[in-house]
C-alpha cells in the first residue's frame, strides 16, 4: 500500500485514494469541432509511459479532492503531488 501525499491532507495510505488516469488531458472546449480521430485521441489514447507519469488521484475517502501526481511507474514511487489546475511540474520527460 503506497503512501500518497495529498496536497490537502498530507501523507495518507493508498486505500483512501482512487486512481484517476492520466492527468492534463483537458476536455476539449468545443468537442463538436473535432474530427473523429481527434476525439478518439482524447477519449482513448494514453501515454502509458514506463517511467514518470503525470496522473490524477482523488482522495475519495479523505478530503474528496482530485489532485495530480507524478509517479515513476517502474518503482511506483511518487515524485511529487500538486493541486488540480496547477501545471505539470518540470521534472523531465516521462520515461523511455
Amino acid at each position, binding site marked *: 500500500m503506497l503512501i500518497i501525499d495529498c496536497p490537502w491532507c498530507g501523507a495518507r*495510505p493508498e486505500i483512501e485514494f482512487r486512481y484517476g488516469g492520466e492527468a492534463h488531458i*483537458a476536455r476539449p472546449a468545443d*468537442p*463538436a469541432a473535432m474530427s*473523429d480521430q481527434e476525439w478518439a485521441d482524447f*477519449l482513448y489514447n494514453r501515454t502509458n509511459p514506463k517511467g514518470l507519469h503525470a496522473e490524477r488521484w482523488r482522495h475519495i475517502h479523505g478530503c474528496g479532492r*482530485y489532485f495530480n501526481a507524478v509517479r515513476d511507474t517502474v518503482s511506483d514511487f511518487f515524485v511529487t503531488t500538486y493541486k488540480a489546475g496547477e501545471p505539470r511540474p518540470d521534472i523531465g520527460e516521462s520515461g523511455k
Partner: protein
Amino acid sequence: MTNRFRTHSGGRIDRGAPVSFRFDGKTYSGFKGDTLASALIANGVHLVGRSFKYHRPRGFISAGSDEPNALVNVARDAARMSPNLRATQVELYEGLKASSQNRWPSLGFDAGAANDFVSPFLPAGFYYKTFMWPAGAWKRFYEPKIRAMAGLGVAPTLPDPDRYTQNYAYCDVLVVGAGPAGLAAALAAAAGGAKVWLVDEQAELGGSLLAERTATIEGKPAQQWLADTLATLAAMDNVTLLPRTTAFAYFPHNMIALAERVTEHLAAPGADLPRERLWQLRAREVVLATGALERPLVFPDNDRPGVLLADSARTYLNRYGAKPGDRAVIFTACDAGYRTALDLAAGGVAVVAVADLRREVHGELPARALAAGIDVRPATVVTGTTGRLRVSGARLAKIKGGPSVDPVGASETIACDTVLMSGGFTPSVHLFSQSRGKLAWDAASGAYLPGTSVERERSAGACRGITGLQRVLEDGYGQGEAAAKASRDAASPARGATPPPGPSAKTFPAQADDLGTDGFIGATPHARNPAFTKAFVDWQNDVTAKDITLATREGFRSIEHVKRYTTTGMATDQGKTSNMNTLGIVAEALGESVPKIGLTTFRPPFTPTTFGLFAGAARGDQFDPVRKTAIHDWAAEHGAAFEDVSLWKRAWYFPKALPDGRREDLHAAVGRECKAVRSSVGMFDASTLGKIEVVGPDAAEFMNRMYTNAWAKLEPGRLRYGVMLREDGFVMDDGVVGRMAPDRFHVTTTTGGAPRVLAHMEDYLQTEWPDLDVWLTSTTEQWAVIAVQGPKAREVLAPLIEGIDLAKEAFPHMSVREGTILGVPTRLFSVSFTGELGFEVNVPAQYGRAVWEAIFAAGERFGITPYGTETMHVLRAEKGYIIVGQETDGTQVPDDVNLGWAVGKAKKDFVGKRSLARAAMSAPDRKQLVGLRTTDPKLVLEEGAQIVADPKAPVPVPMLGFVTSSYYSAVLGHSIALAVVKGGRARIGTRLSVPMPDRVIEVEIVEPVFYDPKGDRLNG
C-alpha cells in the same frame, strides 16, 4: 526407551515440564520448549516424510523455516487441521497430534516409492516430452495419475472455525530478526528514543545466540547476555517485541507485512483469541537483521534420513538437548563443520570423521578439532551414503586433482547414523530483494549481498555478509543508531540511495568462533555414474544435480528457465536450500561465472502464509457490509424474501401465507402484488435509490452539462427524468430529478449506480469546471423513500399530509412539494415507475419505518399491498420503462433504448454528446428496444435468450438481439418481454424466433409499451 538421544543437561527446554504428543499414531514425550522436530530427534526418529516425485524417505535437514523435508499435518480436530507445517517450526504442546504426509500406506512402506525405481525415465521436464498420445488422453488418463501422486499434504475438508485479525501499525524503526545484530540494532534504536518493533519468526528471540554454548558477550555467557538484553528491551515503553512473527513481505514505502502466530503453540487456545494476526506495519526505517542460512552440500544420496545441516545439528544439540545420532560423519566446506564437531563431541556424540572439501585446512577451529582427536580429512568428499530409512554409513573419497571438477579416488565407507553437512552460509537477502534493493555479487565471500537500497532500509549483520559475533553486534548497533537518527529526519517515503553504515558508538567485546566466509556452491565431485546417482539440490521437489545439467544441455540457459524446467527452488522452502547450489551447477555447466547466470526473483511471502490471515474478519455476513434500509426489518417481519442489489438487501417479494400453511411462490406473490397496484394501491420501499443534492448558483448549468436533458427551464417544484451518459456516449445512469429551488436539485440515481454517478459528477466538477459554484452531497441515506402507487394512492396519503395540496391541479404528475407527513418533514414527489398514479414520500431515515407503518395502516381500507423489486420490475416493463443495467449493458446510446427524446437537441454540449456523432452510433443495424409477444400467452421467455431470423441457419447462427426482460403479466393475462433487436423499430409487427436448446419459440415484435400506452392512468 524415550528420549534416548536427549543430552543429560543443558539446552533451553524445560526438563521439568514433560509434554506428551503423537506422531503417526504413536505416542512420544518431549519437553516444553521443544519443537516437534527436536522432540522426534530426541526420540531417535528421523524418518518423517516422503519426497514429492520419487517418494524417497526423508528426514530433517534443518532446524528452522528453511526445512524442505519434514512437512507434517497437525490436527487439533477435524476442522482445525493444517497440512504442510514444518516440524522444525511446530512448537510442542500437550496432546499435539501430527502425522506424516505424501505416503501410502505408511511412512515406512510407501507404494509411491516405486517411482524411485523408474526415476531414470523421469528426468526433469519428462512430462513435456510424453503423454501426448492419444489426443485427449492427457486429461482423461495421465493427468489424474500425476495429480494423485503430486501434492504434499491433504487440504482440510471442513470450514476453518478459527479467527484471524488484522492490524495497521506504525513505528519509527522496525528490526527484522532478533539475533545478535537485530538485538543490538533494537537496543541502539530504542536508546535513541525511537519507537522500535523487534520481530522474529521463532518462538524465542535470540536467533543464533539461542544455540551458543561457549560464546560470551560483554563478559557474560551469551545466553545470559541474551536474557539481560531482552529484559532491558521489554522494560522500555518505546519497544515492542514480537516473537513468532514472520516479516513475510516487503511492500513499497516501507510497509512490511507481519504474520504473528498467536495461539498455534497453545494446548488450549481461548475462543476469543485470533489464531494469527496480520500486522500491516509502516516503518519509517527498517533494519533487516535476517541472518544467514546454512547451505547444504550436493553429493550423492544426500537425502537419506539422518543427513542434516551441520549448524542445525548444533542447534538441536545445544538449544534443545537433542542429539542427531550416536556416530556422526561431518562433510564441510567451511569451519562450521568443526564448530559442530566440537559441540557434538562435548555433548557425547562420536564424531568419526570430518571430510573437508577444502584442499588445505587451517585455522583455529580445525586445529581444536584435531586437538580433540577428531579424524580430520582435508580434500575429502562424501560420495554417497548407505542405509534405507536411515543413514547407516558414508562413503568418503579423496579429491585427486584441481578444484571441484576433479575425479576422486576410491571410496571408503564409514559406519555412522548421521551425516552433517555444511556448504557455508548464504546471507538471507529475501526481504532486501523484495524491497527492490539491488543485490551485488561479492566474489570474496561467494554470495549476493545487499547493494543499493530503494526503501528506507538498511541491513545489519550476517545478512550483509558480516561474520564474527563482535562485528555482527557492532554492525547491528551502528545500523540501529543510524536508523533511529534517520527516522527523525525525513518525511520522504523513499530513499533511493544506499545508506552509509553508521559507525557504532558502542563496542561489544565478545568471544566466539568466527566462521569466516568459506563455502561451496554447486555439486561436489564424485566418480559414480551420474545417470544412476542422485545428488539432491532441491530436496522437496526431488531435483538433482543431473536434472539441472540436463536442463542446460537442452538449452535452458537463463536461471529462470532452469528453475521452471526442473522446478528447482519452487518447493515450499522457496529455494532457501537450493537456489545457490543451482546457480553453481548451472554456472559450471555453462562455463560462466555465477553472477553471469543471474538470480531468480525473491517473491513474497518469505515463508508460506495462511490464507485466513489475509481474509481476516471479512467472512460470512461481514464479508461485505450488508446495507439495510430503515424499512428492512418491517419487511422481514412481514415475510419478505430479499435479493442482493449491490451491497443492499432489497425486499424482492412478499409471499403470503396460504391456508395450507405454505407460502406463495414468487409467481403467485408477484401476480397478486401487481394486480393490487393496478387496481387499488401498493407500497414499495425505494430507499436504496441513490440521491445526490446538487446545490449552488450554478446548479442548473452543471446539470445541463452532466445530463442529456435541458434543465434551465425546469421550474422549481417540478421533476424531470434525466439520462446520464459516459463521455463515450453510452447510457450510464438515469433517474428522476427534482428542482427544489433555483439553486437546488434533488437528483436520484439507480441503486447500484449511486457511488459511480457521484464520482463521475465530482470528476467533471473538480477537474473540468472548477469555476462552477455548485456542490454535491450524497443524501442517499438521509431519506427513507416510500413509493405509494396505484389509483388509490392519493386517497391513502391525503389524510396524513400537511402543507401540500394533493389535488391533481395543484400537484400534477412529475412535481415535488415540501410539507409534513404525520408531522415529519417530507419531500413528496408525484412520480410513477408503475404507470399508475403515484407518489414517493421522502422522510428523514429514522422515521422511515414509522411513516411506512402509518401509510400501511391508512391504506388498509384499500387493501394496500406492500410489493418488492420483482413486482416493480414487472410493472415498469408493462409500461416499457427501462432499467439501466437490464435493458442497457454499457453499449447503448439513448436512441437504442427509445430515450432519444431525452437528449436536448439544442444543447451545444453535454458529457457524451460528441461521441454520439461517431459512425457506429447511427449504424442502421444498431439494436433497438422493442417488445416481444409469444404466441402462447403463458410462455415466459428466458431473459438472455437470443433472437434470430432463421433458427435453421448453420452455426454460427446470425443473431439479431436478445431478451432483456421477461415476465408473466398477471394484469394483462399474458407474458411480456422487452428485447433489443437489430433495426428493431422497423421490425415491429414482424415475427422472429427465439431458439432454445429443445425448441424454437416464435415471437412477434411489438411496441415496448404493453399497458396504458397513452399514459392516461398516470394522472389518476
